[in-house]
């Protein structure tokens, strides 16, 4: 059954960003994160903003989607803005310097959220998992099972819609037996959800067990052929662009 995709979930499309290699996108996202948090001046942040604007345009993501993505963090962001701006010690009032400092922090976070949204909505879960694995590859040296981590991530991403489906079915079954899951104040509601959790968790453990069997039935051992080909020229260009952008943001005064 098709349900509307969750925010940040993969959306099929044929934009230039969809066509980029996942490794390039993950690398660019990491570079942009370094650039956004390391930028020393407004000029640096503006440069990263320019890159974000380019990414949004190239992936046909609306700025509204970015705002929606920021919504869960809204309270914390506005609080940090206020906390920086309001001076209580000494002479109480509004500090413009503090406000700017707070605004800068908010802008940094917005930049990263926007780019992360672009990456996650244009990359299929398995490609994203493989992209992360590629970027993590150096950790192999210190004994991190990179292939396993990537598969685990891919399976987890696959399980999200399944789990949602399961919760929905259990809820329906319990409602039909007269459970009042949304009634009775906070305690009642929590108890109601606990009731949904029991069969959900039992079910998920069984499913996980069965899936593990299914994986070893298909000879899964931990290492897999990488399906990523050599990076195309455009992938290299995008990485280079973000590398230069991030470097400039770090040095621009």
């Amino acid at each position: 059954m098709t349900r509307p995709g969750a925010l940040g979930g993969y959306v099929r499309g044929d934009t230039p960003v969809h066509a980029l290699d996942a490794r390039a996108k993950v690398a660019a996202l990491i570079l942009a994160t370094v650039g956004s948090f390391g930028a020393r001046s407004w000029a640096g942040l503006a440069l990263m903003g320019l890159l974000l604007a380019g990414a949004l345009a190239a992936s046909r993501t609306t700025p509204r989607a970015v705002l929606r993505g920021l919504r869960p963090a809204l309270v914390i962001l506005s609080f940090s803005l206020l906390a920086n701006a309001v001076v209580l010690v000494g002479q109480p009032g509004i500090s413009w310097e503090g406000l700017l400092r707070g605004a800068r922090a908010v802008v940094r976070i917005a930049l990263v959220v926007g780019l992360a949204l672009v990456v996650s909505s244009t990359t299929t879960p398995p490609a994203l998992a493989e992209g992360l694995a590629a970027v993590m590859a150096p950790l192999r040296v210190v004994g991190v099972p990179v292939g396993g981590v990537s598969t685990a991530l891919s399976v987890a991403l696959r399980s999200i819609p399944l789990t949602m489906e399961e919760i929905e079915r259990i809820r329906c079954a319990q409602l039909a037996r007269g459970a009042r899951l949304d009634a009775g104040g906070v305690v009642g509601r929590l108890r109601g959800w606990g009731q949904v959790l029991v069969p959900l968790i039992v079910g998920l453990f069984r499913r996980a067990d069965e899936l593990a069997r299914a994986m070893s039935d298909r000879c899964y051992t931990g290492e897999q052929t990488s399906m990523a080909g050599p990076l195309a020229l455009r992938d290299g260009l995008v990485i280079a662009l973000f590398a230069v952008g991030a470097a400039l943001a770090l040095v621009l005064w």
Partner: protein
Amino acid sequence: MLEARGVWAGYGAEPVVRGASLCVAPGERVVLVGRNGSGKSTLARVLNGSVRPRRGTLVLDGAAGPVRTELARAVGFVRQDPRNQIVSALVEDEVAFGPRNLGLAREEVSERVREALAATGLSSLGGRMTSELSGGQQQLLAVAGVLAMRPRYLVLDEAGSQLDEATRARLADIVDALLARGVGVLEVAHAPEAVFGATRVLVMSEGTPVCAGAPRDFLGSEELLVRSGLSDDALAWAVHEGVRSGYVPGRRLDAGALAEHLSGEADLEGRDGFFAPRAVACAPAGPSVDLRDVSVTYGDVRALADVSLAVSGVTLLLGVSGSGKTTAGRVLAGVQEPDEGEAALDGRPVVPGDVGLAFQRPEDQLFADTVLDDIAYGPLMRTGDAERAHEAARRAAETLGVGEELFEQSPFELSGGQMRRVALAGVAAAEPAAYVFDEPTAGLDAPSRRALLELVRALASGGAAVAVITHDAGEWLSAADRVVFLRQGSVTAEAPAARALAAPELFRETGLRPPALVELRALVGRDRD
């Protein structure tokens, strides 16, 4: 040749597979039938190495005691529920999973993915998300994932039991193509259709597969049918009657050829006439649950478009997957708010709790600490009186054959069959005026399916309205009063069951493949006129 010699295996203290021997040669299709819990699945899993036998040996192409990876590579395994088999969120990537594990080169992996998707008819869906596919497509995808490993043997563990008739036929075509290429197939099945075209039929009996010979020998023997449980299946019994009057089962069940060997409608009514159609009632008495101008939309997908229908007596909701029947069931039960319209029970809007709702998997509806508390939950919510609730629970437990010795156990520790009875008792204990059963018989053996038909009939004669959503229309029709056909979120036809069970055209108009029993009844009826 894939061979098991004197294998003992099982999960619990008592092994369910006891000294089993069987073999599957390349290009052979061996069908294993038997009741739920007889050890068929465990034996199937021994053959691909996912269950280690406690005693006995496996022989793979002449080599005794192959290691797990060798077995897994040579023997593909397809489960009943594709959701437990699909690993990836993306169709192509799912098919690539096996070949990638084999460490094949990238080009080889891509080549195999293309080939497996083409063989299963999924080529156009390669870039889709797996969760977007219908249940039937997901099962074909699971098969594609196994084919991409190019196994020499294939084990299908009730792989068709959750599929509609059209997808089952497609799966049978895929298997035929594999057999022609020399793949050896072991098929564990509950449906009599699977027996057709088998090289050999085995009946699981007391933990051991007993050879029942060619399909004709098996289907012609009452004793073997009884042992496999299939004597309780209306279609299997009709084929049995046909074989006794000279019908020779071919590669597939051919309704036309079989009908010529049937003496009359009595042959379609089961061994003891249990599946005789119900007398035509004008309108079943008792309550009725209705949908009135109901529309439901998920995102931009219209699941139900302005649907009005009435459920009274036993009413079947039929349609291909994605036709909106499950959504209709949830709205009927009052657990899903429609975007427009309403569900009404005897004219009043349905509130959750008015209508009992049972799903295919009992695990989805159990949650209490003990069996008795679980069964008593519905009545307790309804009356708020613990004593009366427990009384109602005991009554329901007795009706459904849940023994008192289980009352204090956790419902999650029970066997599959017991769990199902507890779940049904929990729904029935609140004595709702109406019920919705969503795929109640998928994956059940013939005796359990028959018991469920009996239960539903008993609920209806007790005055309840029952909606049954099912892929197995053939058997249910004889227990039903009315049938509603759905297609793409709209009602395409409504008919009394007495008419639908001899009207294959009603099924075709809805995009469904008519069940064999319906085709047979139409043919037998026509001959007589």
